[in-house]
């Protein structure tokens, strides 16, 4: 039986597509779902915290606030606020990319996925990360970085036209805002309340206020340097849980032997690539082509949440190195979030597939001692706060750069001064903090809005990658070609997504991503060839040839960013 894990597997990465289906299943199933028992009888499943645990969590949260607020002294203009003054070192970028990608619910959801489907669930952090991050580091990041842009839509605007920029920016802002509100409520209500019994309103507002304060004051600098601490806390908590679980099982070899001995239902639990005709969501063809080649690359290269950190690098080397270092750090994530789920198969044999999402909460309750338990929950809060701050910062940047500035330009106004941009950025951050907190419960309980917006966002992944890739690699791609590729590619996604029985998998989002990418590429090429080529001046420094082979363009680009 499907569970909340698919819904909770909500890192804003390649699984956004999956979430859209999982949410619908979750809403349909929640009446009889084990993870969300009726509130009256859940108290016996609540995890009690020792006062040491509470002290650890409080110290962690106050520490984050102090560190983040300290960074406010380095913010003097818009570039400091949005791009950390372009002074970030590679190691901070790497840490920040990884921690921004992991939500608090991943610890619960991925472990549940591993409990149910086996090690194939870890593909989203292996196949779905490293090759894509290498491609992002060496093909996409240098272009974004050298062009001196603040956002991905801004790059698309320069390469294609402001229509593409505005559409992309506006959809991103609306969808990310709603998703943030929903995520907050889900984490506060469905995770912290269900596991700890804490009042969801208190959890929500404390988290939002602390995170909002340091994001408001310190901008990207505060976000990145709190991310560094948060990832360390996550690693200590997550790897501590894994170490204790493996100790109880008897080591990794014993884990394999014991799981495979449980019978045919577990025969594929250590098989990372499943057959194409599997009815589950992770067939190997979808993993390699849909995830590895399209969704992962699109996420790592076209997601403002990720790319913004590299745009704030102190040098191009740091931008690329940060992305690569992030890939290296990310390879450990499945160990923390997936392997505990496999351990639970052995340690909690009575849990059952229908309650797989309770694997990590149950392991915490049974095996973690006081102190470590607090550290584990500090890790969950770290994941939540890093996700909030990253989203706030990226949404604010796009709102200022790609929505408000464009509207002002179209209505005859001039560009904002750096000081005005900074004030505007802070005002919008405060606005999003307050409105997100106020609307979280209503949006979190409204599945229709969430499902619709998730669908819209997820359907952009393949077409967005297609126009990004062609825009960089092919000089002949035109503004009309890019616009047609984006719009018709999204339309293609809707058709493939909603036409039943086209693919063997129950959730064919990986296949839809691949074919929409191919379709969007074809449309962009055909329309571009039928329209007038862009001028040399417009594409100079924005396409592969001019960056790699043209020495004059290289000098011009270096001058632009120095």
């Amino acid at each position, binding site marked *: 039986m499907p569970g909340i894990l698919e819904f909770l597997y909500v890192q804003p990465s390649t699984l956004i597509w999956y979430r859209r289906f999982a949410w619908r299943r979750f809403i349909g199933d929640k009446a009889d779902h084990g993870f969300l028992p009726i509130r009256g009888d859940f108290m016996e499943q609540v995890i009690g915290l020792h006062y040491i645990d509470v002290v650890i969590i409080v110290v962690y949260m106050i520490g984050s606030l102090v560190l983040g607020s300290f960074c406010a002294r380095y913010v003097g203009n818009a570039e400091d606020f949005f791009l950390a003054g372009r002074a970030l070192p590679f190691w901070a970028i790497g840490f920040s990319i990884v921690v921004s990608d992991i939500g608090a619910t991943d610890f619960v959801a991925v472990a549940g996925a591993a409990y149910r489907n086996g090690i194939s669930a870890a593909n989203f952090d*292996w196949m779905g990360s490293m090759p894509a991050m*290498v491609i992002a580091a060496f093909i996409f990041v240098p272009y974004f970085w050298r062009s001196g842009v603040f956002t991905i839509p801004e790059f698309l605007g320069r390469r294609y036209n402001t229509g593409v920029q505005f559409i992309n920016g506006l959809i991103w802002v609306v969808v990310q805002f709603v998703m943030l509100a929903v995520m907050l409520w889900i984490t506060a209500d469905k995770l912290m309340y269900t596991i700890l019994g804490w009042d969801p309103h208190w959890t929500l507002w404390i988290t939002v206020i602390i995170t909002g304060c340091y994001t408001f004051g310190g901008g990207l600098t505060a976000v990145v340097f709190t991310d560094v601490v948060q990832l360390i806390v996550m690693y200590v908590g997550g790897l501590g849980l894994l170490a204790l679980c493996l100790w109880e099982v008897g080591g990794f070899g014993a884990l394999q032997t014991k799981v495979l001995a449980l019978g045919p239902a577990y025969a594929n639990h250590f098989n990372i690539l499943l057959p194409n*005709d599997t009815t589950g969501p992770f067939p190997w063809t979808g993993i390699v082509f849909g995830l*590895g080649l399209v969704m992962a690359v699109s996420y790592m290269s076209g997601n403002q949440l990720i790319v913004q950190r590299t745009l704030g690098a102190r040098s191009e*080397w740091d931008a690329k190195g940060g992305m*690569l270092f992030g890939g290296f750090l990310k390879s450990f994530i499945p160990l923390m979030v997936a392997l505990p789920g496999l351990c639970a198969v052995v340690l909690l044999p009575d849990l059952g597939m229908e309650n797989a999402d309770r694997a990590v909460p149950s392991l915490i309750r049974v095996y973690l001692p006081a102190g470590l338990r607090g550290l584990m929950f500090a890790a969950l809060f770290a994941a939540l706060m890093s996700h909030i701050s990253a989203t706030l910062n990226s949404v604010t940047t796009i709102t200022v750069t790609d929505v408000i500035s464009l509207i002002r330009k179209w209505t005859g106004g001039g560009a904002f001064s750096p000081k005005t941009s900074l004030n505007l950025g802070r005002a919008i951050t405060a606005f999003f903090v307050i409105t997100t907190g106020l609307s979280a419960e209503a949006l979190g309980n409204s599945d229709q809005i969430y499902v619709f917006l998730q669908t819209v966002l997820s359907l952009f992944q393949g077409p967005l990658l297609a126009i990004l890739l062609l825009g960089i690699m092919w000089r002949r791609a035109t503004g009309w070609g890019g616009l047609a590729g984006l719009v018709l590619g999204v339309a293609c996604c809707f058709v493939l997504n909603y*036409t039943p029985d086209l693919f063997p998998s129950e959730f064919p989002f990986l296949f839809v991503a691949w074919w929409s990418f191919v379709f969007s590429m074809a449309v962009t090429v055909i329309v571009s060839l039928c329209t007038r080529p862009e001028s040399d001046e417009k594409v100079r420094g924005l396409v592969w040839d001019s960056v*790699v082979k043209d020495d004059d363009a290289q000098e011009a680009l270096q001058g632009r960013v120095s």
Partner: protein
Amino acid sequence: MAAGGFNLEEAFIEFCKDVFHPILAPIFHPINDALAKVYQPYASICAVGLFVIAMFIVGVMINEKYVNRGRTVLCMTPHVIVYFYFR
């Protein structure tokens, strides 16, 4: 979205089923049937190939001063081992 008993999503699914399924099924079903017969060792070859191609692009195709080849290839190696181990 549902509105007054009318479900737009279900209506759209019905529309796609009637209009697009007859066109798209003859394209995708043969592909699905062909892929259903392809599994190991090709799945592992494709998966590892993705990593190797990424390494190849970085290590061979891109200008040396543009990348740090040694470290890139080094940090990707553990991933390749993962796919050999769990094949």
